[in-house]
């Protein structure tokens, strides 16, 4: 048995504290967003946590106007796939950027987003 480099719970505790972390394969160097048991590139089972700077650019975005029931009070809001400068990409909620000014390629910076005491990934102005 191998202890995971970082669990989902631990990842989001770090997000709440303002830190974004990935995992790097000790065998081939592949960077990934947890959780991942085996490296998809070399299938090794040895990961080390690696801090990410939080700087990235928007790969795609949308403004959600018809929201799921549990997010209805927040609409409209934007979500974006952001490619971080280390090479991995994650979905995040756009915070403090006018919805009309969003564009693919726009630089953004990670910030924690806490709604109803649940931490998730936000991106604000770079």
């Amino acid at each position: 048995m191998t202890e995971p480099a970082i669990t989902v719970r631990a990842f989001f505790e770090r997000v709440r504290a303002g830190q974004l972390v990935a995992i790097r394969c000790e065998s081939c160097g592949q960077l990934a967003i947890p959780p991942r048991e085996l490296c998809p590139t070399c299938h090794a089972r040895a990961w080390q946590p690696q801090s990410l700077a939080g700087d990235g650019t928007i790969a795609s975005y949308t403004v959600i106007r018809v929201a799921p029931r549990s997010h209805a009070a927040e609409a409209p809001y934007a979500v974006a796939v952001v490619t971080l400068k280390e090479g991995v990409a994650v979905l995040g909620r756009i915070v403090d950027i006018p919805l009309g000014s969003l564009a693919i390629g726009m630089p953004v910076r990670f910030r924690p987003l806490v709604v109803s005491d649940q931490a998730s990934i936000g991106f604000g102005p770079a």
Partner: protein
Amino acid sequence: MRRVAVIGVGVTKFGLHDRTSAELFAEAAADALTDAGIPASAVQALYYGNVVGGETEHQLHTGPQAASVLGIPSVPTTRFETACASSHAAFRHAVMEIAAGVSDVVMVGGAERVLNVTTAESTEYFAYASDAVWEQRLGLTFPGVFALIARAHMQKHGTTEAQMAAVAVKNHRHGALNPKAQFQKQITIEQVLKSAYVADPLKIFDCCPFSDGGAALVLASEEVARRHRKPVWVLGSAAASDWMLLGDKRDLSRVPATERAAAAAYRQAGLGPDDVDVVEVHDCFTIAEIVATEGLGFFEPGAGGRAAEEGRTSLGGEIPVNPSGGLKAKGHPIGATGAAQIAEIVTQLRGEAGPRQVDGARRGLTHTLGGNTATVLVSLFGRD
């Protein structure tokens, strides 16, 4: 491996129904048995697609429930769940079971009921097909997933909102010829472009509706099928998956699972895109049809929007796509969709599609996509 044929099809009207999903499936299944001309006692197994029954009907264990309501309670049955591709996954399993010689006659079906809950509720339940922690917490929706794909496709290839609108107009024009379709009414480009945004750049007329409905197929081995009037042969059936998280997908303008499933299905059939006469693709959103026609090899990556605008995918065009009206106009009861697409292709290859018939169609293809593009199934069909 033995050859497998579809010998019976049944589909309910799609739209609002005051009936349970099991009732909707059973109507379609009884119609499929009548169409096949075989008794219910010949059915040796039932494979069933249903997705949000737990949420909208407080119903799990839908396989045996569907079998009981149909009236064949003792056959082995399993519910398949691959989001919107569920009954296509059930179909592939049935094909393999017959090909392997385990069964001779298998029923495949699916049904869904969602119009008994609000749009905010169904939007939430459909989003369960995305990752609960990483994506649902951010308020990602199903239209949101395809809006991200649309924006990436527009950026990379110059695809326009008018080209996406052309897909909606074409599928409504086809749906107007289908008496089972939820919407049997033509729309205009202007109506699509002026409709309200759901998730920019997708507007309400870029989105398929929420639907109730059921569909069923009777599959048989070659020996049984030879006694049937018009067997439609399964020439290939393949499934592929892709990363679950949107961030892990390398290029949001493509759907790699479509490309992989198509390559495998074409290889099984010994066919290529040029051999296909009629297609039903998963147009849950207009951009999804554009990306599907590219991934299936009918057009180069980036050329799908222009092809739709030029009418190349219309009835009468070089490769008619979604003669049924597609999910957009026919409707999208998610558990039933894969089986309903196959029912349309079987009807087309039999030459029984009436005013929406593709003349002389000999080879057909169905493409069904699950949720966030992490599941795709592609099957190929042919007649004697």
